[in-house]
């Protein structure tokens, strides 16, 4: 299959490329950028005039809900949603049912994903067996089976000795441990940021210290063990500052934030909107400002969707009893664009947060658009407005705090390995 993408605005955040030109794709790879070679015979021509052609997005947190939670969403539905969002590579957390703590489960997931033939799925293996926080999984074997890192997802790792041992063991092999920092005792029972809004609404709070205490512990243990750690979904200004200092010190730490935390704060909880029940909780406006700054200055490495499809039944409960999480893989791109526009950031810098920078955390070469490279591409209309509604989302999960928002930027085509996997 040979595809000619004609006269698009080519943006490759990693190389700084930003100009109008043609891209030719053959045998899954980009074979020409700039002008179409005279002897290129395309089977398909995509007119990209007025559109942006960029590397496909790399999303560091997409819950595909398989195995075990197929009533919420399926591999098929969520991979389609990801493609519709322009995502061509994703990492999925191990909090499936059963969790991804055995090679057989990882192999089956990869096999199922490959058969659906849509996009690159990079599983995170469970750090501990059954995510119980007690015994290590067979990390080396899981790595060989295709896991790109190891994580507890949102399951607690209370025992700091297990945490230290897991970091030591991972450091032996050079694996990255992905941790969402949370002190389980301080967070216990909480459902919202311990601040003005939770005080007013009478919701049990999760103090910022639940995050900072955990980040401090992890950073200290990183120094001890030499392990590489990716901190997931930071939510507090203090934690971001700690990461800034740790990076300056040279610790091998990286971190990400979610689109929800980039755009919303505790003030958005309104009258107990269950779509705003998230982990970590939405924090204060001050924290949100720090996230916006940290992402712009590179302290925060990546922006992710933290895609978590939740069925309606699990959201139609009193706030504290609802299941946390928001669907979002289809909103990653428009909300990155919105952030760029609102904060006056160069487009390429914003797009790097959803392409080359997260790819670097995965240790993969995806998230770039180079001559000779894999043709994982997203072609979008940056001007097109659309309204976020349950019907506009391909995901089985309709639970998003952005429901009703008008967003700009619509994916027209998604190509994975040179194949059109999505067309609007």
């Amino acid at each position, binding site marked *: 299959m040979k595809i000619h993408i004609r006269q698009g605005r080519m943006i490759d955040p990693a190389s700084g490329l930003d100009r109008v030109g043609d891209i030719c794709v053959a045998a899954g790879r980009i074979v020409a950028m700039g002008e179409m070679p005279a002897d290129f015979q395309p089977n398909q021509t995509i007119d990209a005039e007025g559109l942006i052609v960029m590397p496909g997005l790399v999303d560091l947190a997409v819950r595909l809900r398989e195995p075990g939670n197929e009533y919420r969403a399926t591999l098929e539905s969520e991979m389609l949603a990801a493609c519709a969002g322009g995502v061509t590579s994703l990492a999925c957390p191990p909090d499936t049912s059963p969790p991804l703590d055995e090679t057989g489960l990882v192999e089956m997931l990869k096999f199922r994903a490959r058969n659906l033939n849509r996009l690159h799925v990079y599983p995170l293996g469970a750090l501990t067996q059954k995510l119980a926080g007690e015994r290590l999984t067979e990390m080396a074997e899981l790595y060989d089976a295709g896991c790109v890192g190891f994580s507890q997802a949102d399951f607690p790792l209370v025992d700091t000795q297990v945490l230290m041992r897991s970091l030591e063991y991972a450091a032996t092999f050079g694996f990255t441990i992905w941790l969402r920092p949370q002190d389980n005792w301080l967070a216990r029972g909480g459902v919202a940021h*311990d*601040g*003005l809004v*939770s*005080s*007013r*609404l*009478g*919701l*049990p*709070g999760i*103090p910022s210290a639940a995050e900072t205490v955990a980040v401090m512990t992890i950073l200290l243990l990183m120094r001890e063990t030499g392990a590489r750690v990716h901190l997931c979904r930071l939510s507090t200004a203090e934690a971001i500052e700690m990461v800034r200092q740790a990076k300056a010190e040279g610790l091998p730490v990286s971190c990400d934030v979610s689109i929800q935390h980039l755009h919303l704060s505790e003030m958005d909880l*309104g*009258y*107990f*909107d*269950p779509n705003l029940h998230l982990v970590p909780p939405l924090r204060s406006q001050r924290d949100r400002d720090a996230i916006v700054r940290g992402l712009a200055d590179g302290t925060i490495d990546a922006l992710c969707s933290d895609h978590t499809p939740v069925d309606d*039944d699990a959201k*139609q*409960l*009193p*706030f*504290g*009893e609802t299941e946390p999480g928001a669907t979002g893989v289809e909103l990653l791109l428009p909300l990155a664009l919105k952030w760029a526009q609102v904060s006056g950031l160069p487009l390429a810098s914003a797009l790097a947060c959803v392409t080359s920078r997260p790819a670097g955390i995965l240790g993969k070469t995806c998230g770039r658009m180079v001559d000779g490279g894999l043709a994982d591409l997203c072609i979008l209309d940056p001007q097109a407005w659309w309204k976020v509604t349950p019907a506009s989302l391909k995901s089985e999960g309709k639970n998003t705090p952005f429901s009703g928002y008008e967003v700009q930027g619509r994916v027209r085509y998604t190509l994975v390995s040179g194949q059109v996997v999505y067309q609007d």
Partner: protein
Amino acid sequence: MSENPQLNADGSLRHLLTIDGLPSSLLTRILDTAEGFVAVNDQEVRKVPLLRGKAIFNLFFEPSTRTRTTFEIAAKRLSADVINLNISASSQSKGETLLDTVDNLSAMQADMFVVRHAQSGAAHMIARHVAPHIHVINAGDGRHAHPTQGLLDMFTIRRYKGEFHNLCVAIVGDVLHSRVARSQIHALTTLGVPEVRVIAPRTLLPVGISQMGVQVFHDLAQGLKGVDVVIILRLQNERMRGARLPSPQEYFRYYGLTPQKLAHAKPDAIVMHPGPMNRGIEIDSAVADGQQSVILPQVTYGIAVRMAVMSMLAGN
């Protein structure tokens, strides 16, 4: 979801979920309406036909004696049909059943739900769910709100003190876990009470409470100095020992209202408590049963205030 779900477009009351966000004029109207019902309660035939033929469901997911009973009496005096449902937490482990319950009762042509639930926001959720003609009254949701209690407390204060604009009111005890305290604070600040104090150890105060318009005290004697109204909050059994408080004895010693401590307040100060009381823990019997206590009148006025809320919701 951002507009106030309690109010109709014309500013009239559709549901009563929280006092937070209600205008002072509306609170005053409720109190004025309640005045009229106090008279009804003193009549020989204590019944008016305002809610005849209406079906009111008391939906209590948490046990209650006082609140449920006074709601029942209030509804009956308005000639409504009252159905009490006490749904224990154990038989109702999942909330789908909660909305299913609500749907089923709505199908029985309910006109009003009076809801108590252990989770903050439960009444809001039900209000969002029900058909437009059904009204929801929050009879206490988690730590969030107990608006009729807040209103009956305001009614009591107004009866004894006449005005709000010259008062100093102190709320003593477990503000953190108290829906009553939150409703009182919103009501007092909305009605123009210039000085509202909260007195408690740090472990029983929510973050940022001072931004709700109150002054924070940790010393009972200091906090009571010169106050007109003392409101004592109930300390729940499970909070008496643990990480927030070492023992009920120590709590009583430092935060229990004794006649000696009460002497720091104005001589004509009144003492209130939403009940049920823990005598010898948050309040000394000598104070609870003393001259300055208006704890039992609070209960009596609760009926008139709940009659006022129900009749206003029904459009009277």
